């Protein structure tokens, strides 16, 4: 569970960040794809966006559609809220995940190991990407003005791959998370606001 949550959130964050900066519109290699994400991150102190999440889960007969928001602030705060009727809020503070269900008024916390901390990812992004990260394969496809970067973890976790789709002007369109059990999550982004001066209040979980 730990790896799934942390990887989903981290990639969600990184891919959303990429939306603001990249302007490349050409066939790129995997390393270049990641470098595009890295460059996009530079200069961003915080951002927020609205999301629509569609989950196709084998436990459910129908697709589950939810709306919500995501927020980020440096150095290591990430917040994601799903709106009612399936309301939930999730806060990642470096390595600590807090999950809150308003309707049930229940809170649970999970600690990530240091190697999966948010700070660690930003340390990775502090220098140009010249090689692929350990433990994952990366694929970058371009179709017209749309670029898709797919990350395939090599570990034995539940996630099969993550795929982000961006327009050549750097506008992120969607994030797809595919699990080995066939479950699939699609998140589409809109109304992204960068460096709007988010405060602690924007990261309150309850």
């Amino acid at each position, binding site marked *: *569970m730990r790896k799934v949550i942390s990887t*989903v959130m981290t990639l969600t964050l990184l891919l959303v960040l990429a939306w603001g900066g990249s302007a490349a519109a050409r066939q790129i290699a995997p390393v270049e794809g990641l470098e595009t994400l890295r460059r996009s991150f530079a200069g961003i102190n915080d951002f927020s966006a609205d999301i629509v999440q569609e*989950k196709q889960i084998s436990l459910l007969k129908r697709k589950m559609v939810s709306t919500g928001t995501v927020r980020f602030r440096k150095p290591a705060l990430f917040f994601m809220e*799903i709106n009612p009727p399936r309301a939930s809020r999730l806060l990642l503070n470096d390595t600590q995940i807090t*999950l809150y269900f308003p309707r*049930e008024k229940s809170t649970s916390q999970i600690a990530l190991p240091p190697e999966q901390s948010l700070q660690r990812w930003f340390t990775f992004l502090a220098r140009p990407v010249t090689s692929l990260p350990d433990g994952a394969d990366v694929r970058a496809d371009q179709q017209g003005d749309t670029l898709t970067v797919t990350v395939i973890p090599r570990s034995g976790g539940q996630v099969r791959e993550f795929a982000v789709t961006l327009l050549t002007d750097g506008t992120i369109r969607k994030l797809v998370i595919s699990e080995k059990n066939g479950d699939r999550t699609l998140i589409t982004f809109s109304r992204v606001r960068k460096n709007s001066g988010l405060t602690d209040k924007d990261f309150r979980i309850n």
Partner: protein
Amino acid sequence: MLNRVTGATQSAIKRHLAWIFRVTSTRPVMVFVAFAFFIALSVVSILTTRFEADVFKLFPARQGALRLFLDSLQWTGSANEAYFLLEGEKGRIVPEAEAFAGRLKELRVDGAPAFRRVIYRIYDPSEARAFADFIGYAALHPGSFLEPADVPAYLRRLEPKAMDEALRRAGTELASQAGAGLRDLVVADPLALRDFVTPRLKRGSQALDLDPNSPYFLSRDGRVLIIIAEPARPVQDMAFARKLAKGINQAREGARVRISCAGAHLSAVIDEAAMKGDILSCILSSLAVVLLLFFATYRRVLPTLLLPVIIAGGVVLALGLAGAFLPSIHIISFAFMALIIGLGTDYSVHLYDRYHMERCAGLAPDEALRLAVTDTGHGIFTAATTTAMPFLTLAITDVRALSELGILVGLGVLFSLYTTLFLLPPLLLFMERLSPRFVYRPLPGFGLAALWRGSRRRARLVKVVSLLAVAAFCIMACFTTFEGELKNLQPRHSEAFLTQEKIERHLSLSPKQMLVAVEGKDFGDVLARGARVDLLAEHYRQRGELAAFSSLGQLVNDDAVRAEVVRQIDQGLAGRDPGRALKDALERQGFAVEPFEGTIAGLASLRGNGSSSSTEAIARLAASPLKGAVDRHLIRDAAGYHLLVHLFYKGAEFPQDAFLKELAAIDPSARATSVDLVSRQLAADVKQSFLWGFVIGGALVIFLLLSHFSSALGLFASLYPVFAGIAAMLGIMAASGMGINFMNAMVLVTILGMGNDYGMHIAHRVEGKDMPEREFVQAGRAVLLSALTTIAGFGSLAFADYGALASIGWATNYGIGATMIFALASLPVFLGAGRRSSSAPDRQMLP
């Protein structure tokens, strides 16, 4: 008969001393060769002696509370564990803990990982699947895991409307960003029946009072976090433990929060340097004071320099002999040999003082030395044996701390005596040859002549004051208490001790704990007996006498409760099919049915499902990520099953004796332990040991004194100051709020052995002499110096950080100081009275 025995003893001692004088004055080279030979033998013995470092082996642990206490440390492995306490700002403490735990995991000793495991989080996410599997099992086996009070709520959750609500909640969880991780849990328990099971499991598995909302071992105020680490090798391996301690110190360098370390064995190593420094500074300061006193009084360099040789010789010979016969020697017992500095110096003082005085009076070197060795030597022989015997009688005790201490100090005293008798005479003769023109000037009297005259002028007043003072001290001594709190004996600034206190303050469920063990080979029988203990504990908890208790019975129902829960479930589900109801609810809420077939089948067979046993439930719990809860409460080894019930209480409100009585009534074979019970057991053992030591040692002292003196006055003169000194020591301790404890009780034996020396020396020299004032000044000076050197040796411990040593130091200061004052101030009048009333003043006194 007694007279014959004492006469024969006296005669044998005289012959023995005459032989020593003959040998040391005529064959000094042979004496040195023999001494060197025995020292070499002792060194070999010491080098092959195994020195023990396990503090728990200092006390008798064949049975009782201490046995169970040690067993529980062994079972849980907590004796070997290291505890790291991080203190700091709330926001900083968790990242620092992560970083420090990472460094501990990477720490290596001799190329191998230093720790087998390092834990600081309540829940390891990598165990999510196993956790979900167990929760699914527990939710469908309410007979084993559901408390009877929760049965109605459990049954309500199985109603269609409640099922719909639970499935909506499951949908919300799946929709969240953590949904992928919660999938297994939703499949295993779609109706969240875990709500009725997990609080109980969490409560029962909690050993520390932690923030329930934090995934870390974090205190409720968020300012203290504990990391528990299991070293890869036993920390009784001192070489490993020292390297580990060094690595730990490096790992916590540069941390932005305060990190302190504790742990039963590791703390001994962490504190080792501080303790060594403490003892070493006591030894060095004592030695310096002793040498300074000796030199300041006698102004002779070589005899002064001989003192460390005598002390070292006494220690090495004693340790060598003890090492040859004991299987091992504890390093703490060895540390107490520092006391030889104070004790071993006395004989040189008396011997040299007499020699100096006789030389000053004009006697030739040989004659002066003969008198010193055979006459004063008789006094110091009796003094040494009366000091050594009470210590040596401690060898019979069960308490290893005392028996080893008794053997080592007793032997140390005897060997110091013989080293003095064999080395000092040849040295004195050598000095005569070296400086034939040395002029022996009168030694300082320290006002003793004036004291003698003043006391005798106001004899009646001195007697009355002395007796009144003794009476007053005896009355005060009646208020002496026994200090059984082991914590007060700890080093006051020990990191481990302070850390342990912080753990108790911030993270303990209650200040005190008692552990009850129900044991046997038949698991079912052990569980049933454990249930009766639970019931007893629950009565005490309901009355507020126990703050809480935890047991396996709180995690898993015993057979009787299980039968009752199953009966209620069967009754509540009469005419209902919860499996079918779940299937319908899943379809209503848009869930696929197939992934939940296991749960549907489990619910369908819920009614009438009384087949699972407590044994199976415990086995499932032990195989789950919650196995720690089972490990805390159930141990299986070659002896059978050990079911442990932890009782938490605050203090006096828990009537321990009444509980133990009731426990014995319901289960005569159940054992119990707690710090209080261990203290009580140790106190009883120590009291018994000291009683026997006091009786046997006292009898030996009286026998030796009777062998020395044939008059009642001599016996009185020897025993009155020591009786007064012990009364004064106890009285002052009572007045200053200091109790007798496990360690300073040893001073009673010391005072008994040493205190009579002072009176004995004075009586030996004064009684029957024509110039008693001169004899009193000589003997009194030696007694004064002996007392001061003893206080310097023992008394310096008063300023030690180690509470046990400090209490010994203070008790000695009071006891020796008072004994000396009573001997010097009172005996002139009592001995004077004896002289006046004696019809035959010269009878039987030596010489």
